[in-house]
């Protein structure tokens, strides 16, 4: 589903050229949940941005669903994002002048779907916020805002979901509930999930953990959860 080939990213700074990612290569299968884990500044979010087509690499390529992002301009990448990709952000990124319901409706409306209202209501109900649809983001708690963001991410019927530190702004208990919801929905919609986090326990819920240190992949291992899953499949 996602293939990353020798991806490098450098930026100019006042102190010279800074290399954030050094020749990263990865393959992520359809339906797989992959955690990218690393310390602050290791290049996780940069990698996520490049994989989602939000930014362009200095060298190397990202191939999403068989299509090379390198060969596309921003307009074409935007179209591809609209068809393939959904996002969940650490800072939620809800639009403050829209209600919770309207935030979820927005990507559905963008597709020109006349059923935006009904679909968004169903998704809000699915994340347990059917009573809060008319509330504005600043009237919701952090956990509630992230639920709205998750509902919005699945509203696009995306096949790949990118999550950038989805529990980073939440307390442990709320974070745990959000993670549960995220994985439930991921299974329900058979989405490929790429999750950036520095939370080891959260990463263990995925199929694979890719560790980044100073912009380089130092390990790429299946998790115990994946092993259990594989064993279940084998025993079946």
């Amino acid at each position: 589903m996602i293939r990353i080939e020798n991806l490098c990213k450098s930026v100019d700074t006042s102190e010279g050229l800074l290399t954030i990612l050094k020749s990263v290569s990865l393959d992520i299968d359809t339906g797989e949940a992959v955690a990218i884990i690393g310390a602050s500044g290791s290049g996780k979010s940069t990698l996520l941005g490049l994989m989602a087509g939000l930014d362009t690499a200095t060298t190397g390529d990202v191939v999403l669903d068989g299509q090379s992002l390198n060969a596309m301009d921003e307009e074409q990448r935007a179209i591809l994002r609209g068809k393939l990709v959904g996002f969940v952000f650490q800072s939620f990124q809800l639009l403050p002048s829209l209600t919770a319901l309207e935030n979820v409706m927005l990507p559905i409306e963008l597709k020109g779907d006349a059923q935006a209202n009904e679909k968004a209501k169903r998704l809000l109900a699915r994340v347990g916020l059917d009573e809060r649809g008319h509330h504005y983001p600043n009237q919701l708690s952090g956990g509630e805002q992230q639920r709205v963001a998750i509902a919005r991410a699945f509203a696009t019927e995306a096949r790949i979901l990118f999550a950038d530190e989805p529990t980073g702004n939440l307390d442990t208990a709320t974070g745990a509930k959000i993670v549960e919801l995220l994985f439930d929905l991921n299974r329900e919609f058979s989405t490929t999930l790429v999750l950036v986090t520095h939370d080891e326990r959260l990463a263990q819920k995925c199929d694979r953990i890719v560790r980044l240190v100073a912009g380089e992949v130092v390990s790429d291992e299946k998790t115990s959860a994946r092993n259990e899953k594989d064993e279940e499949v084998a025993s079946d």
Partner: protein
Amino acid sequence: MTEVVTAESGGNKTFSTLFGLALRLLWRDWRGGEIRLLFIALVMAVTSVTGIALFTDRLEKALLLESANMLAADRVLGSGRQPPEEILAEAESLGLRTAQTLSFTSMAFSESGNMLVSAKAVSEAYPLRGEVIIADQPFIRGFPIQSGPPAGEVWLESRALPALGIDIGDSVFVGEAELTVSKIIIAEPDRQQGGMMDSAGPRLMLNMLDVAQTNVVQLGSRVSYRYLFAGEELETLDSFSEWIGEEYDGEFRMRDVRDESEEISDALNKAESFLLLGSLFAVLLAGVAIALTAKRYSERHYDYVAILKTFGCTSNEIGVIYLAIQSVLVSISIVVGCILGWLVHHVILRLLQAVITVDLPAAGFEPFVIGSLTAVICLLSFALPPLLALRATPPLRVLRKDLGQQKFGANVPYGFGILGTIFLVYWYSQDLVLTTVLVTAVAAIALFLSGLSYLLLRSSGSVGMKAGSAWKLAMTAARRRRKQNVLQVMVFSVTIMSLLVLTLLRTDLIDDWQGQLPENTPNHFMMNITESQIDGIESFFAENGVDSNAFYPLISARVISVNGEMPDPETELNSDEERSSITEGAQPEEGESSRYDQARSELDAATGNSEAAEEEEPGEGQIRGRLGRRQVTWANDLPPDNLITDGSWWGEAVDAGYVSIEDDYAGWLDIEIGDRVEFEINQQTIFAEVSSFRSVRWDNMQPNFFIIFSPGTINHLGATFLSTALMERDQKILLNDLVRLFPTMVVIEIDALIEQVQNIIAQVTSAIELISVLVLVCGALVLLACVNATLDERFHENAILRTLGAGKRLILSSLLIEFASIGALAGIIATIGAEASLYYLQEEVFEQEFNMHYWVWIAGPLIGMVLIAGLGMNSTRQVVSTSPLSVLRRVI
């Protein structure tokens, strides 16, 4: 598998999807308050421009109509001899309507009395514009009619009947013709237009066909012929006027109301300039408000766009969405603005109902087009650039908040704004010079202001927020936001400056007009009074409760030489002043250059009786002709409305042999203080030394003189006297007794003219007041938009300060000090700018004397301080009333 995205693949959304989304976003933004200020700024731009354009359009049409009524025609050709009949034929061939009048003074006789009357013969078609008011009995309210008397009949003014001892139906003799008095004439549209011939006694109107029978008009008689023309097409009238100019080589000239009444034309021109200036300020301020609100709107939409892009919106689709939002917004603004503009102009007209005496012509479409185009141009130049810059917002902003701002180049929108403003100013004024002057002036002021405010706010390089005291906190905050603050101070300064300029200009204009013709302005001139009659006239007025005024001796003089040499001015003296002066105009026997005596001079030229034809050297004769004769006087005291500009006025114990000269006239003749000037007065030579120059208020419709001698210099040369009196309408009957008691005296009635001028001044004054209010509203809007422009940052910063433990009082005091300082600084700069602009405007555009407004130097900074502090505190008071967390949550 998704379909393959290729280079040819466009966005996958249809226009209707994007347009529908744009509408929903617009509605949600409106509900959330995001776009309201931008909408209000747009509506204000359309409202003020449409309102002002509608009002000026209709007022202009109305005033032209009213003015036409004053002439009884659209154009008039006046002459002391009969103009060729082919002029009338040419006018008729062009589809113009024509009429003729003939004015002359004559004695009217009845069986029991006689009196001097101002006779006017009119042709069948008279009047072409306006109405004659007549009555069946004297001294009653009349009814309108659109014709003059039929042949064989005359109409007389009420007070002539008792003077002649007759009633309606009786006969009067005018020359050799016996005519029947059939009606009383109460008013006629062009009462004052015949000059002396129309002011020397009560009106007697007769039919043109009866003139020959009277036998009073013969070669050499002092008469005033007038050909009247009216037409529906302005172009036809203009080309006809040009034809006359070319065909008769300047011998005959067409006149309209602006030529006929200097006072009215002056008031109208100034009012038009003010309205133009007011609407320019309104557009400029609304434009700035649009620029500021649009910039803030677009800044707040960076996140919006980044999110839309992560959802798959392409830059082009973002462009379509925001273009659609702006198009819908501007369309609604145009509709609302046009409706409000129409209402505003109606309110103005309703307020002016009492003074607008004519039926207003319907408004055209043009004002609505102007208002709508203003909104579109404002949006294109001020709002669209920052909004289109949104297209360039990188989607990565969803991960990195610092991306996306200022991408387009912070100054590009201002560049567009400036271009748009220049275009609008030119479009309104249609005047390249005014546009260049205004744009250069504003640019110079803006540069000066930004330089000055940058210097004043320059940091000494201190570090940190100095959060210990409110004062230090405010000052460091002001310095940290130096760039925004310089811009804010500039916008505040220009706004306050515009408001100060308009307010001061309005006050000065109105004061000037009210000073020109105060309530108790004398409205009757008595001339040709002998010295022995003065006591009798004074006691007549005293007995009848009429306030009499000073008696000025009047004598005709000519400048012969200055220090022994004949002056040789190269140009003609500016005739506006002469035409404005009643005294200079009121020369029954002498003058050759005034409006009142144009008829006489033309007659003289025709009969070989002109000054230029005197038996002198041709060159000398021409110069003498140009120097002309002046009505001069002598006086102990400086006349009212005169100011000494050089030298000194003579005191009580004055010697003979001095003269005071009007300063422009002295400059024209190249006379200096102390020069010895030779005059010819009644064939005698008089020498006098110039002791002072004076400025004279020519437009006050009072006796004014170019030359005043010290008492004893020319007293022996035999003068007649002139005086003025204020007589109300019900006192006019006294004129009969007055002229009977003092038969040699000539009374000039200018009450109708003064009333007309006062009416028009009242009318334009009210208009100016209302335009000022409109501009004030625009100014307030700009100030509000400008305060709001930095609101987010202030909210964020103060929320952090509160989180860190700063008290409400500290934050509020610091905000108050910061806003008050910025306001005071803007006030000081605005005051400097306002005085500089006023100097130019008053001296060059409004032809007023510029005086410093000292109180503004205190009021300006104070207004700035209170206004900005008030608006700023009002907008940011939520900083301390909402929880820091919710502020931070909203901003993050």
